[in-house]
């Protein structure tokens, strides 16, 4: 087990990079996801269709397939990105579908009375969405969104397959170098738990704080 303690800096560096990758992707996915959800409930059919197609296509494709597409196939059509940027793009696009579905269910959970009242005071559809429905919908789905963030923390490990340095790749490298796989694995497990468990607490705290009190 000394392998872990002798190489704490490797694990910490890996944690930092994983956090970097996940937080950046989550912020982008959150914004994109809200847009996707808004399009999904829009009265304009082409927007609804485009959003639904995007969600179904990306959600049913494995994450690793998407990563390979961006890293190996995109250059053939002129889009070349760094490994890190590719990972961010893929994780953002993939996570945004789940954020979009969750926010949509949140929108549906806001009682129709709210939308009716918004119409009654003369707000347009975009206005009622932005000022009345979305704020309530988002406050309702803080819990599931936290779950999505935790899942994203774990999914970021897939980036190891496209040469992005993060926690999984650091632990794998350490295990291969020292041939001490069990300690390296336990170290990586502990590191991931140190990222996910506080995230869970933060989610619960945030959920309680923004809960809609009736």
């Amino acid at each position, binding site marked *: 087990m000394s392998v872990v303690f002798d190489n704490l800096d490797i694990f910490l560096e890996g944690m930092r990079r994983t956090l970097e990758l996940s937080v950046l992707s989550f912020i982008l996915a959150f914004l994109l996801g809200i847009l996707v959800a808004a399009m999904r*409930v829009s*009265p*304009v*059919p*082409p927007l*609804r269709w485009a959003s*639904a197609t995007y969600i179904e*296509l990306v*959600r*049913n*494709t*494995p*994450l*690793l*397939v*998407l990563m*390979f*597409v961006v890293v*190996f*196939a*995109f250059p*053939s*059509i*002129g889009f070349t990105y760094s490994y890190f940027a590719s990972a961010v793009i893929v994780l953002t696009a993939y996570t945004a579908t*789940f954020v979009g*579905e*969750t926010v949509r*269910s949140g*929108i*549906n*959970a806001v*009682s*129709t*009375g709210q*939308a*009716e*009242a*918004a*119409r*009654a005071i003369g707000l*347009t*559809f975009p206005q009622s969405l932005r000022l009345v429905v979305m704020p309530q919908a988002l406050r309702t789905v803080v819990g599931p969104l936290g*779950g999505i963030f935790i*899942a994203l923390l*774990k*999914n970021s*490990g*897939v980036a*190891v*397959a496209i040469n992005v340095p993060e926690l*999984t790749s650091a*632990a*794998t490298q350490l295990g291969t170098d020292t*041939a001490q796989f069990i300690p*390296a*694995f336990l170290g*990586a*497990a502990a590191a*991931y738990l140190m990222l*996910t468990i506080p995230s869970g607490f933060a989610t619960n705290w945030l959920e309680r704080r923004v809960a809609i009190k009736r």
Partner: protein
Amino acid sequence: MTAPFIGDALGPRGRRITQVVTVVSAVALLAFVVIAFGRLSDKGQLDASKWEPFGDWPVQKFFLEGLRTTVEVALVSMTGAMVLGTFLALARLARTGPVRWVTTLFVEFFRGLPLVLLIFFSALGLPTYGVDLSVFWYVAIGLIIYNGAVLGEIFRAGILSLDRGQTEAAYSLGMGYWQAMLLVVIPQAARRMIPAIVSQLVTLLKDSSLGAAVAFEELLRRGRINGEFFQNPLQSLVVVAALYIVVNFALSMLARRLEVRQRRRYKAGAIVVAGAGMDLALMGVQGDAAEAADTAT
């Protein structure tokens, strides 16, 4: 498909704006598609030479065998995960404290890990400790442990969702704990959990693609090999993605249909597992449950 989300239908001004935006966005989408295809053909990606190989039976066979391996590992892992999950669920509901705690530790530990980490260490680490299996089994072991933990939670939620009256009635008939479990609780709980299990199968199918990173000869890896061989990575990966999408979409539809049928039959909500990550069980169920709640009010 979605009813107008606004409580009242839009007035004349709203309808006019909607029509205008419909036309504008339809044109924009069309333009996007045309430009995308234009760019693809500019870069030679629509050339016959890149797509021809897929008309040959050897290439098709190559892909189909990869698909078969993917399905094989998914079914094997699903079976193993269900066995493990049942055991974990029952252990977590045990009456003796230590059994519960150890099981809870095990489940929370493996659920909190990335699956890719499990598979990597299974494939790279186990050999150094003398365990020598084919890559298929390294991938399967990773999948079984992780999905066993997730399914364990799903099963536990299913068992707990059953009305207490059922167990009480069973005890009042003189059944013991295990009799009540096996004859009354588990059969009913199992029926309720079928949609969630099918959803988890979809996730498992997608996760099996992680084997490509450890040289497991499944669909994605074969797609990459094909792409390198014929110099058509984009086309090969598109074919791989299309295959995954078709299979997963069909299974998701099945899961959703089963869930709707179930809600009608049992009037209890379908199983929602908190923190099951981005499993479709969580996403699909939440959306539908929220819609059901909305229409109910």
